[in-house]
């Protein structure tokens, strides 16, 4: 019996030649990641173990991105705590404000995560790196602490669900719509504990940026990871970034899947997830009249250069609606620079948008665009839970960047076709 890509990568990080779904294993880690919310807890736990040094100064990566630039005194204290830890441990990959980005945009961009890696991150969207053909999964702070200490983590080898996307994409339909549609179909626990594997001709033709968007939201279906087999697109992306070797894995033809789900994408239109779960999806033509107060374009889901280009295409020469706030958050400093070079910032600012330094900010209701009671936002982020972006009585609708930009212009949720 063959192995899935998830099984192959995990097996390569143990002493075994083969692992099977359901098995509990200890795997070697290539990267252990934390942010400014999860790392403080991890450091306290790490200190209890009684070791003085982390297992590898290059493999522990810390990115303060959630409440930074520090939004208040408590968050400043937290950031200081991890900065001092990074200094004392001489961590090579600690990213200070001015050099940082949202972790899941930053790590691939910096070539820190590569195909074939096993990565844990004390952040649920660590699954993003599955787009590179890496086994990457979110864990908690205690797992991060144990990972920093030993360079290992325990895993239950997951069963896999294979998703096959065929057909021709409709205009304005992107990776975001494919993943929202998928979550709408299988539900927020549709892939609980499982590895999702995205395949098919549509995925093969997707850009790296859109693949990241898809893998990013695997967790929103309960998935442990969201894997895409590496191909020439992956190699082109990592070749110019990688400073160490990497391995390309793909599933065997006779690998075992718990389920195989096929979609004809020609039936998929741009998707909007209604409050308060990412599974509450509707096609844009079925949205009806939903007025909005704020639009947010950014986050580890859709804060990459391609996302900003699409937003700019929709916004160019237009104005955001009166009394509506459009907030744009590029994912990293590099992405900001690129957007600036391409003149995207000028388009955004001329349209009446606010452009921010990279931060998670409003995505988790941290800062930089919190919603008041009764307010409604459309966002390119990944979660629309109760209170996610502010007051428990506010609402978040999820979409791709083109829909968010078009909606900002109209003041209500609309298709990009209505403004272009």
């Amino acid at each position, binding site marked *: 019996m063959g192995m899935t890509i998830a099984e192959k990568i995990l097996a390569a990080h143990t002493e075994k030649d083969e692992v099977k779904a359901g098995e*509990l294993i200890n795997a070697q880690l290539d990267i252990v990641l934390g942010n400014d*919310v*999860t790392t*403080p*807890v991890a450091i*306290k*736990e790490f200190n*209890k*173990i*009684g*070791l003085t040094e982390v297992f590898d100064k290059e493999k522990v990566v810390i990115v303060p991105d*959630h*409440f930074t630039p520090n*939004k*208040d005194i*408590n*968050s400043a204290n*937290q950031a200081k705590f991890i900065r001092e830890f990074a200094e004392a441990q001489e961590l090579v990959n600690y990213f200070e404000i001015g050099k940082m980005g949202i972790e899941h945009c930053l790590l691939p961009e910096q070539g820190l995560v590569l195909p074939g890696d096993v990565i844990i*991150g*004390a*952040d*649920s969207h*660590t699954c993003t790196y599955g787009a590179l053909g890496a086994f990457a999964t*979110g*864990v*908690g*702070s*205690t*797992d991060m*602490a*144990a990972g920093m*200490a*030993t360079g290992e983590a*325990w895993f*239950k080898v997951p069963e896999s669900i294979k998703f096959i996307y065929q057909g021709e994409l409709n205009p304005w339909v992107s990776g975001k719509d494919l993943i929202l549609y998928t979550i709408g179909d299988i539900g*927020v*626990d549709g892939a*609980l*504990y499982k590895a999702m594997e995205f395949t098919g001709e549509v995925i093969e033709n997707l850009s790296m940026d859109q693949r990241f968007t898809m893998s990013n939201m695997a*967790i929103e279906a*309960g998935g*442990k990871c969201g894997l895409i087999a590496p191909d020439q697109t992956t190699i082109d992306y990592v070749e110019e970034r990688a400073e160490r070797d990497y391995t390309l894995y793909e599933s065997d033809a006779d690998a075992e899947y718990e389920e195989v789900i096929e979609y004809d994408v020609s039936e998929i239109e741009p998707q909007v997830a209604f409050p308060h*779960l990412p599974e509450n999806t509707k096609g844009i033509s079925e949205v009806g009249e939903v007025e909005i107060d704020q639009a947010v374009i950014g986050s580890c889901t859709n804060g990459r250069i391609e996302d900003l280009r699409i937003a700019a295409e929709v916004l160019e020469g237009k104005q955001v609606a009166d009394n509506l706030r459009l907030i744009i958050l590029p994912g990293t400093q590099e992405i900001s620079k690129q957007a600036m070079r391409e003149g995207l910032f000028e388009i955004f600012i001329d349209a009446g948008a606010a452009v921010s330094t990279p931060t998670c900010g409003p995505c*988790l*209701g*941290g800062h930089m665009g919190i919603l008041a009671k009764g307010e409604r936002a459309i966002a390119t982020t990944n*979660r629309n*839970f*109760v*209170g*996610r972006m502010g007051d*428990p009585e506010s609402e978040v609708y999820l979409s791709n960047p083109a829909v968010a930009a078009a909606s900002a212009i109209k003041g209500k949720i609309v298709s990009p076709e209505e403004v272009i």
Partner: protein
Amino acid sequence: MEIKGQAWKYGDDIDTDVIIPARYLNTSDPAELAKYCLKDLDEDFVTKMNEGDLIVAAKNFGCGSSREHAPLAIKAAGVSCVIAKSFARIFYRNAINIGLPILESVEAAEKIEEGDEIEVDIDSGEINNLSKDEVYQAEPFPEFMQELITAGGLINYVSRKVDSNE
């Protein structure tokens, strides 16, 4: 470990954002986090519950973020155990790692009603509904997780391993 208390019932997909909203994540102090436990789901949960009470929920409890602050807040608030039809995987992992007892049982999640007096034997997975005089059996933990639980969580487990390697 004695687990006995009153049940507080909630529904499907209780996410980590309502368990502990992000606006309170600028600290990692468990006592501070405990004050806001379940705040956006059930405003006065913390004031009405008693030490030792249990949370009983439906499917996919703890979905969303990886914030360990969620099980920490629940534990620090004095909740002795969470019973659900299923747990989101990071929450499941975190709960075991920090020593918050959790049990999966569809039957218990369906039959227990708010206010029922519940007693749990975490080793055997037996859930005793004293109010209804019913017993439900939860899924037992795999052996490795039993080891983690017996060690008192992942950090103790790792510390022992580190010590024995030296």
